[in-house]
Every structure is written in C-alpha cells, then in structure tokens.
C-alpha cells in the first residue's frame, strides 16, 4: 500500500446514530413551525439554514465524514464548491439583468 495516510476505520456507536436521528426529527418539526411565522425574506434564510444543519448532520454522522480521511473531506468540499459556483455565477447574470426589479 502506497498511501502514507493510512486511515484507521472507526465504528460509530448506535447511541450517536440515535442522537442524530432525534435531532433530525426535531429540526424537521422546527422548520415546519418556523414556516408558519411571518419573517419576510428571512423565512427562506431560516428554511435553508435548517436544511443545511440537517444535511450536515447526515453527512457528518450517518455518512461518517466526521471519522473519515482528509481526502474524503476534501472530495466533498470540492463537490460542494462546484455546486456553489454553478449557482452563484449563474445568478450573477440573472441578478444583474434587471438589478433587483425582478
């Protein structure tokens, strides 16, 4: 094996899974509840923020990223980065077409 960064495999205990599971259900209830409040533009912000938290929990614990090698962490960052590039750079066109008069 050539890889000097030999990665030790860790077994995640079910207690962790249970805790994450409970949090995910809590955040689902939270996002449903928040959507009934009148927060103007922050409704979307809150919804996306909660979704990001939920997604992060799944990625870190259910998908074991918390315990993974640097390479795996870098790989996911690369994917996330490219996703952001697509969204934001496409938006530069749409936002600057009518400058807020959408």
């Amino acid at each position: 094996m050539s890889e000097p960064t030999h990665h030790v495999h860790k077994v995640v205990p079910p207690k962790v899974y249970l805790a994450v599971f409970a949090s995910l259900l809590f955040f689902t209830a939270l996002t449903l509840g928040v959507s009934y409040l009148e927060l103007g533009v922050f409704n979307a912000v809150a919804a996306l923020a909660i979704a990001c938290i939920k997604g992060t929990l799944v990625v870190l614990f259910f998908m074991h990223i918390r315990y993974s090698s640097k390479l795996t962490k870098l790989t996911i960052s690369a994917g996330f980065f490219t996703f952001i590039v697509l969204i934001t750079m496409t938006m530069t066109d749409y936002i600057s077409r009518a400058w807020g008069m959408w």
Partner: protein
Amino acid sequence: MDSQAIATLPEHEQQAHEHPDYVRHHFASADQQRETANFGMWLFLLTEIMFFSGLFAAYLIYRNWYYPAFVAGSHYMIIWAGTLNTAVLICSSFTMAMGVYSAEMRNRKALIRWLSLTLLLGFVFLGIKAYEWHAEWVEHHVPGLNFSIEDFTHVNPAYPADKPLSPDMAEKTQTYFSLYFAMTGMHALHMCIGCGILIFLIFQAWGGRYTNGHMNTVENFGLYWHFVDIVWIFLYPLLYLISRHQ
C-alpha cells in the same frame, strides 16, 4: 526479464499478507480495497450533487422571478404528506446507518432486519409520493399534460386570506409545478433505484456475504441512501414550506 531494472518488492514478502478471498487481485490489501471503494462511491455522489444542481439553479431563478406563483403553487401541496415523507426518510437513514453498524458487528440477522426496515420505509415514501402525484393529477396541476390555471385565479379554500393571481402570474405556476415534478420525479427515480438495489442487498446479506468482514457494499450503498435523503431534506422546505404563514 527486465525485473532487475527497477527495484521491486520480492514476491514472497507480499504473500505474507493475509488475502481474504473477497479481495480482488489488483489490490494489495483488504484495507486498500475498502478505502478505494469508499472513495469511488464518494466521487459518484459528487456527480449526483452536480446532477441535481441544475434543477436547484432553475428553482432559484424562477422562484425569484415568479414568487407569488410559487407561493400559490406551494399552498396546494399536501403538507402532512410532505412532512410525513420527510420523517419517513429520516427514519430510513437511521435504519440504514444501523444496518451498516450490524454489518460491522457481523450480525447477519440484525443486518437483514435493518435493511428490510429501510426498504419498507422506502416503499412507504414512494407510496405517499404516488398518492400526492395522483392528487395533483386529479386537480389538473400536471404541466404539459392537463394543467389548468383555474385553481390559481380563484381563492384557495385553505388560504382564504390569499389574493387570487392574475391570469398572467397564474400561468407561471406551471413553472413551479414543472420544477416540482422534475425534482421530486428525479428524486423518486433515485429512490426506486435505491429500493431495487436494497432488495438485491437483502438477498446477498441473507447469504452471509456482508457479515464476513467484507461490508464495503453495504457501507457504500448506505452513502447513496443518505445522499438521496439529503436531497429530500432540501426539497421539502423549498417545495412545501414557501411562506406557509400567508
């Protein structure tokens, strides 16, 4: 033979390594195989992220262009169905993670139980989704096939405070529903494929294929399943919870 040309590891040193029979010939060790397969699965998930990203980009643009239409469209979503589906998928992620744990603990019966639960939850999700789609078909909310703007130019009985849309903006609800069907459809397709693979995995698990130390396949399928769950975690607020307070 040119084997003196480059310094090489003498063959007999390699044979000192334990080579379980599930390790393929081009890998030096089971560890290398496991990490390689894991890395490969993550790269595949990257392609899936980018696959869905086009849909999210389209959603972002049209939601901003036609916000009232998106609100009106979202108000016709069956909120209990969407919320229940979210809970179902979160449960299925939990059962999948427990399945991976069972495979690591080499507990065949537990693995089969958890995988079967995951499959069941997957079917529940698809069932609820089918119910929703049927409802949308009945209500003439399917773009291109039987779409009608009737509902949107009149008051929505569930939201009497909402003003009905002008015909112009009501036409744009088609964009909302186009994205709704494209995104949930693509997601459902991935769920179907996942359920299919899960059936195969349960059979293999029954034969003990994953409880002998070789649990790569279960682990990597778990990654796929969790990813599909994450997509839904984002679809739920974006499609169902657009301004429920109005």
